[in-house]
């Protein structure tokens, strides 16, 4: 039986005490972002600048909700939410710290040993370490539980063999949290998996080969493990509990405001390109997307509020991601149609055309990374009780 309550997005108002933080972040971004071109600002969570990440870290704006005892800031998830939405909407280059701040930090905080937390969390909060996610493999995409890269127990630790793929930033990251098979005799594919915290710079036998994306950009990689030796303490959490842990990690990955904010810069530029004198038909079309932006903001904030109250908004988060990626994928087409300009590469055309070109070339990934649209729809169907 369908329970409509499970699909409600209760109204959430951020506490007024966060207004000051928001104003502070806006003021900071107003000056800090002037050094980037509109094109660079359209990269949002693909934009990569270690200096910028360190600046955020110095202000105490990374690892915000990680425990203080280990070097986090012990602040609420809502404060982090404010930082994240402000940086994304402004088009700040958040890529260096993005994965660490969003999911690796929280995973280490939840499952790591004392030593792992002490080693990792201060660097995340400082914006000094970059993480990557070792989940997908050549033969395991949507069917993640079928991963085959193995970690075999040896005398002084683990021996890893296999291949990860599409690993964003693996060629420049410090650490990877990888999902590896530790027991191939387990009776179900969901058992026998474990997570590992891998120091990429200190482990021989790991090679990251950049894979160019459709536009020739280098951000993701094929990572091969050939008899890579990990120390015993590289195990993250419980041996054999990798599937449960990875589901928790994906929940961090699937619930944030980035699910509708990777194109906000384009919407802003589109609004300026049209101006108030635009035709009523054009205003109506851009207005419909503005309505979506406000709607998605309300929905996303509601998810943040539910998380903050300790509830599990898994279904609602999937709905936001589903609607959010459709929104983001509509924008480039609309921004071209309404303004009537050709999308262009970096050295061609004007700023608007470059931003448009960049996002047009990024948009296909919005409904793939972090779980495809089809997989999300399956999760929603399960929430509706029909699966």
């Amino acid at each position: 039986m369908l329970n409509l309550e499970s699909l409600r997005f209760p109204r959430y108002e951020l506490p007024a005490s966060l207004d000051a933080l928001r104003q502070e972040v806006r003021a900071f971004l107003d000056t800090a972002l002037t050094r980037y071109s509109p094109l660079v600002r359209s990269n949002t969570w693909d934009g990569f600048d270690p200096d910028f990440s360190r600046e955020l870290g110095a202000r105490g704006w990374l690892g915000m909700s990680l425990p203080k005892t280990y070097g986090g800031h012990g602040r609420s998830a809502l404060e982090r939410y404010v930082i994240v939405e402000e940086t994304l909407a402004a088009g700040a280059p958040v890529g260096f710290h993005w994965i660490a701040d969003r999911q690796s930090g929280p995973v280490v905080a939840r499952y790591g040993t004392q030593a792992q937390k002490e080693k990792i969390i201060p660097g995340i909060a400082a914006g000094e370490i970059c993480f990557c996610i070792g989940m997908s493999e050549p033969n395991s995409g949507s069917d993640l539980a079928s991963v085959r890269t193995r970690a075999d127990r040896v005398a002084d630790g683990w021996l890893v063999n296999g291949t990860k793929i599409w690993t964003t930033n693996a060629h420049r990251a410090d650490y990877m949290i990888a999902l590896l098979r530790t027991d191939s005799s387990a009776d179900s594919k969901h058992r026998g998996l474990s997570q590992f915290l891998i120091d990429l710079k200190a482990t021989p036998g790991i090679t990251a080969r950049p894979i160019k994306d459709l536009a020739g950009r280098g951000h993701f990689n094929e990572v091969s493990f050939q008899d890579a030796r990990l120390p015993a303490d590289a195990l993250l959490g419980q041996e054999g509990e990798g599937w449960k842990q990875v589901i928790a990690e994906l929940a961090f990955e699937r619930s944030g405001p980035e699910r509708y904010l990777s194109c906000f810069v384009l919407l802003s530029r589109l609004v300026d390109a049209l101006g108030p004198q635009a035709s009523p038909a054009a205003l109506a079309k851009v207005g419909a997307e503005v309505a979506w932006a406000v709607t998605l903001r309300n929905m996303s904030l509601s998810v943040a509020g539910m998380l903050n109250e300790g509830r599990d908004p898994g279904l609602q988060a999937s709905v936001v991601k589903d609607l959010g990626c459709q929104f983001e994928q509509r924008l480039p087409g609309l921004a071209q149609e309404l303004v009537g300009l050709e999308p262009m590469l970096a050295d061609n055309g004007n700023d608007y055309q470059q931003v448009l070109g960049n996002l047009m070339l990024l948009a296909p990934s919005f409904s793939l990374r972090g779980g495809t649209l089809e997989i999300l729809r399956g999760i929603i169907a399960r929430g509706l009780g029909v699966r």
Partner: protein
Amino acid sequence: MNELQNILEESVSRLFAERVDRAFLARCEDGEWPAELWSLASEQGLTHVLASEAAGGMNAGWAEAFIVVRACGRYAVPLPVPEQLLALWLVERAGISAPSGLIALLPTVVDAAATGHYTLDVPRVPWGRAAQFFVGVTSDQQIALFDTQHASVTPAQNLAREPRDTVHLHAASPVALGACAVNPHAIRWLGALLRAGQIAGAAAACLELSVKYTSDRVQFGRPLSQFQAIQNHLAEIAGAMASVDTMARAAFLALDARGLASLGDDSASFEIAAAKCRASDAVELLTRLSHQVHGAIGFTYEYDLQFLTRRLWSWRAEFGTSGEWGEHLGRAATAIGGDGLWAQVTR
């Protein structure tokens, strides 16, 4: 939701679920005025959610009104409960003591002729034929209340056969006139808000019916809901419903915060425009996919879906299409400019 809201939601759902069924709706479509349900709804205070205690109301806010209005959509309630609660709120804003009886909304600006009398034809008045009074807003910031003495009505309907009559005022004088800070088009904005709330309710009902029907109906040896193509449709309906519901509620709450005087200004009433634009926009997907998963049965008068979808098709257009409200939003956004857009979205 707080306790009052929970109680309200429960009692309004119980009342409508018990009383509004297919046979009842069919009779109303044939012209019957459901007097009994109307008095029950009034006795339970549903029409008076926004009215002050002095005026015999609940003295609640738009957050509570949302619950009632959405329920009216969900159960396809063939009564002007949303319109009445709005009318009572409006007259009280202008310091007019509310008369008892049905007050119909005049959706367009009403202005007096040079003589001081009102002679106009106002089309698409919800339940004009059943009204004892009419309320309208003048272009000089007054709220005008008329009785039926100098009025006549030409009946008309929307696709769902809800009364949408033309009201003719013949040299009428208002029985009450009150000045307040109100935009002449306030009723269009408020009507849009009501319809967004009703669309949210009807969308939820479409989803419920679609999930239930596809779970019960077996083809190829399994319930339809086990086919991935059908699950995909259901997920899309759910997403559209959730987006409409969330934005409609946000708009009702924004009105609590900003009040009557904010209406009519594109940026001050941003949430209302966004809610009606989103709601009207969603109707296409909601109705198309709900009908699709139902097959032929959904195309019959014998099955409930059409009571919802015909309303959705009308409500999509009433008090402004998604294009009209999108234009308001586009105008607001371009006036604010790209760099200020995010602050507006998060205000």
